[in-house]
């Protein structure tokens, strides 16, 4: 189970609305390489992890991704909050507005709703961990695309934090894969 802490993992204080940037960042909420997909992937895969290190790693990185989902939702909310509808139309984000208003909905930047088809969960831990390594790299690349179009330091700062976490998670998954392979080899699984 989880207990809620009334704070984001990293400070977010966006004072300058930017609806186009909100829609760009939205893909990290409900898109293919987003935080919701990451969290569900690891929290589902953890049930079939064979070693104590792997169980803890999937459990805890899956949990951190929920905190990242909250950070992304906070950014989207603060970038969209109170922007007048006519301004949204001028900036070409009115198609999103007429469906959801200024709410935060789990879709990608094109409005494609979140789907569990973005993730896999197999009984085979080697297959899972290799997917997880790729997922962290795809999320890192997405944050770099977002950073390349962002201007506001209040937006870039949390995006840089999130990009860095993908690199750390990739490192931890690499160590976990090595531990799982060593354990499976020593037990002569194959």
């Amino acid at each position, binding site marked *: 189970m989880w*207990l*809620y*802490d*009334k*704070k*984001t*993992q*990293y*400070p977010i*204080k*966006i*004072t300058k609305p930017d609806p186009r940037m909100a829609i760009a960042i939205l893909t990290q909420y409900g898109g293919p390489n987003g935080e919701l997909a990451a969290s569900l992937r690891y929290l589902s895969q953890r049930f079939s992890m064979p070693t104590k*290190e792997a169980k*803890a*790693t999937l459990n*805890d*990185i899956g949990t*951190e991704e929920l905190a990242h989902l*909250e950070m992304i*939702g*906070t950014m989207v*909310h*603060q970038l969209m*909050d*109170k922007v007048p509808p006519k301004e949204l139309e001028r900036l070409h984000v009115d198609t999103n507005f007429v469906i959801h208003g200024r709410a935060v909905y789990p879709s990608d930047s094109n409005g494609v709703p979140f789907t569990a088809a973005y993730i896999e969960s197999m009984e085979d831990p080697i297959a899972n961990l290799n997917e997880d390594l790729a997922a962290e790299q795809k999320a890192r690349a997405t944050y770099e695309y977002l950073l390349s179009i962002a201007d506001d330091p209040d937006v870039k700062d949390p995006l840089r934090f999130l990009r860095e976490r993908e690199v*750390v*998670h990739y490192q*931890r998954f690499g*160590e*976990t894969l090595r*531990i799982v392979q060593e354990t499976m080899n020593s037990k002569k699984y194959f």
Partner: protein
Amino acid sequence: MDEQTTLLEQIMAYDFALYDLQLFLNTHPSDTNALRDYKMALEQSENLRRQYQNRYGPLTARYLPNTTCWQWINDPWPWNNKEV
């Protein structure tokens, strides 16, 4: 930055250090240096958290201040801009 935000951001910094160390310790459970750093950050975080909650109210619903009113629902929530 006001005092409440400064204190909260100190807690956030220690809690982030703790979480990063937690992930590291999951794959390096015998690393005594990391374990020592974890213990140090945990003491700091708990101490600052106690100060914060006494002054500004609950960070978790499990903190029950000595009042007749349930304070957990009070603003701001983490996604609210303080100025708004």
